[in-house]
């Protein structure tokens, strides 16, 4: 045999490589848990884990899978941590479960308030499967019930539902950006408060009198659409949930926190001339809030926050001529600024007195006063500095716009 033939023969061995290695797994053999729910049980250290497994064949126009298959399957089991629960689940789920595509982790409010959540999430982040971009959602009811009752009407593919639902709600600022990455930073940093997304399927007494964002999930009066509401945020202090903020407070936290951004904020403000009406406007923030901290040891810290913003008026239901009357404009300007300042002051007062820390990530601004971590930790932002600080918030309206209409029709002229 010539060398050539031997080489040819040897190259056949390369085919063996094609069968793959130990970690080869077919797509068909895996099932993807898109959402993960965690609930408390009566026993300490044992939790109920719910996995919502997506059916990848649903929503394909190309056909393929049978039409009657449901878009997802939700299973619940008990266990002491996520990974062992995942293997228990395999006694009634046919494929190997992976968390690679998990979008949200839902915890019940009950569990969040008990403070055990941090242990669960820490043991979960030890594996490489859970990504740091997974969003943390706190559900008012049990996480298992929450996941079982999510019935999106249009977006049948569960993973897309969560992705779009959360992305959109985040853009409007009514829910915070609450990924695991941020949770760890804030919780381990031990200075600020972490805001998680608050959601529910349970309808509580609808709050009919609230303005557009003064709700928490479950309170929004609506007809049609999915019953699931994402609104407001759960406040976590040191890994333990302590309160719920409504959509408005969550939006304000976005405004005051320069690490979060939001795309649009449509909101209404009281009409300064006809008090029974409200003016709706688009709040635009081009630059982040400026936080100035004047820190001196053994003295009361002074925090000055300036928020530059712009307003694009969208609707003036009272038909008062703000667009062309300079005097009225001044009044409107002032009234909007005052309205925002008042809301922000209320929120800050609440955080200082009730939480003794803040969800705005302001501890970042005091860190340059210290030269190393031990000094910074000794000064103790959330016990000594923040609760006693003098805080002034100044909203500064830079520009007032009125859309593409110069003026509204005078109703008395139309109806004569």
């Amino acid at each position, binding site marked *: 045999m010539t060398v050539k033939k031997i080489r040819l023969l040897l190259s056949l061995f390369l085919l063996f490589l094609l069968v793959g290695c*130990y970690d080869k797994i077919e797509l068909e053999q895996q099932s993807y848990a898109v959402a993960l729910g965690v609930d408390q049980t009566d026993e300490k250290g044992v939790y109920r884990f719910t996995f919502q497994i997506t059916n990848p064949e649903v929503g394909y126009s190309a056909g393929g899978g049978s039409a009657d298959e449901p878009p997802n399957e939700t299973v619940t089991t008990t266990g002491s941590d996520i990974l062992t629960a995942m293997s228990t689940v395999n006694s009634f789920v046919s494929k190997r479960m992976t968390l690679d595509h998990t979008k949200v982790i839902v915890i019940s409010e009950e569990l969040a308030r008990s403070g055990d959540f941090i242990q669960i999430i820490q043991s979960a982040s030890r594996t*490489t499967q859970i990504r740091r971009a997974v969003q943390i959602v706190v559900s008012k009811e049990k996480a298992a019930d929450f996941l079982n009752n999510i019935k999106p009407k249009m977006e049948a593919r569960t993973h897309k539902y969560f992705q779009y639902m959360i992305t959109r709600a985040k853009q409007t600022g009514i829910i915070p950006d609450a990924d695991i990455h941020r949770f760890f*930073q804030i919780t381990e940093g031990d200075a600020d408060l972490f805001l998680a997304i608050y959601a529910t399927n349970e309808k509580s007494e609808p709050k009919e009198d609230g303005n557009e964002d003064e709700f928490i999930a479950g309170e929004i009066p609506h007809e049609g659409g999915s019953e699931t509401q994402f609104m407001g945020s759960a406040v976590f202090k040191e890994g333990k949930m302590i309160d719920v903020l409504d959509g408005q407070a969550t939006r304000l936290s976005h405004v005051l926190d320069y690490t979060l951004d939001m795309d649009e904020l449509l909101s209404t403000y009281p009409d300064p001339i006809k008090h029974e009406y409200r003016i709706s406007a688009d709040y635009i923030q081009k630059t982040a809030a400026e936080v100035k901290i004047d820190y001196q040891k053994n003295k009361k810290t002074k925090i000055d926050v300036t928020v530059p913003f712009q307003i694009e008026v969208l609707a003036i239901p009272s038909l008062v001529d703000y667009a062309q009357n300079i005097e009225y404009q001044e009044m409107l300007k002032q009234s909007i600024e005052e309205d925002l300042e008042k809301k922000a002051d209320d929120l800050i007062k609440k955080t200082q007195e009730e939480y003794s820390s803040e969800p705005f990530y302001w501890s970042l601004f005091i860190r340059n006063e210290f030269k*190393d971590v031990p000094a910074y930790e000794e000064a103790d932002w959330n016990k000594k500095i923040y609760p006693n600080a003098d805080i002034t918030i100044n909203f500064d309206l830079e520009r007032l716009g009125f859309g593409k209409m110069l003026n509204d029709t005078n109703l008395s002229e139309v109806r004569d």
Partner: protein
Amino acid sequence: MKDYKTLTTRDMFALVTLLIGIKFADTTPALLAQKGQNGFWLIPIVSFIVVIPSFLLLIYLLKKYKDKNLVELLETILGTFSGKLLGLIIFLLAYSTLIFDSRNYVEQIKLLYYPQSPTLIIFGLFMLVAFFCAKRGFEVIGFTSWIGLPLIKFAVFLLALLVLREAVWNRIFPLFGSGLNIITMEGVKNSSIFMEFFLLTIAYTSFKDTKFFRRGSYLGSAFVVVEIVLFFLLYTIVFDYNSIGKIAFPFHEITQYINFGDYFTNIETFFMVFWLFGAFMRFIIFLYLITWIFGTVFNINEFEPLLLPFAFFTVMIGMLPENSIINEMVIRDVLLDVMTPLFVLFPFLLWFIALCKGDLKK
């Protein structure tokens, strides 16, 4: 050994960059962040300042004694016996670094991408690839480095760009992390993260002209230190000080975190390819260099057949530590501390002896 020499500045630049530059993507940041907290990005600066005089001095000596590589230089200055002894010590330390570093990389690959595969198989395959490529000889290694460099750096640059969105600049404060004295101490102790500079001098005479070696090493080392510091800084501003010490593989943590908009999520495998390429290049170069040092110490001119046994022993010894945490946090830490004084001081020793012998006046 080689009759034709083709390598120039750019190849040297690529060699330095690949051999050392990948350190921001392994467990080095985790090791340093344990001690330096959010000031840990300053540590490589201190280390570099400590290492650079010794390195420049060594280059200066090599330039003076024309056409000698590292071990030959040692023998000329210290005499055959002491020269060889010092060469052997350098070889042993470098080889242990190779062994435990490669185990470390294998653990990363296993943990992050191939959890079911046995460590031994991954380790075996990894070193097999390194061996085959190293067997091609130094010219090919240098050339491959130069070709691969743009690809690897492009991926890294893209990653840095994508993660910048998550960066919060105020996190660099308090500036000195766990304290200025701790940063300085760790910087000095861990200077050996740059010890590959010294190993590369074994290849001093293998370039088209020795000035290419010098030029490439200056450029390469400047680039590498900037790159490492920038990436460490990036980890600091992305992870913050309490989290950074808890993350074993910050580079991979970042690749898992980012995505290209809503459509391209879970893109870490894209970066894994380039990272793996970089890791292979590092160990190809490393394996070749230490075999070369061994060959020169024992006057073995045809040292390339030794690559296989060295690769084999790397796997065998590398399998000994029980788990990656012991390997990383105990063995590697001690090794770095032990190596530092040797590598920082021996060029000064050489210079002093050469000065006394009057060789430098020529």
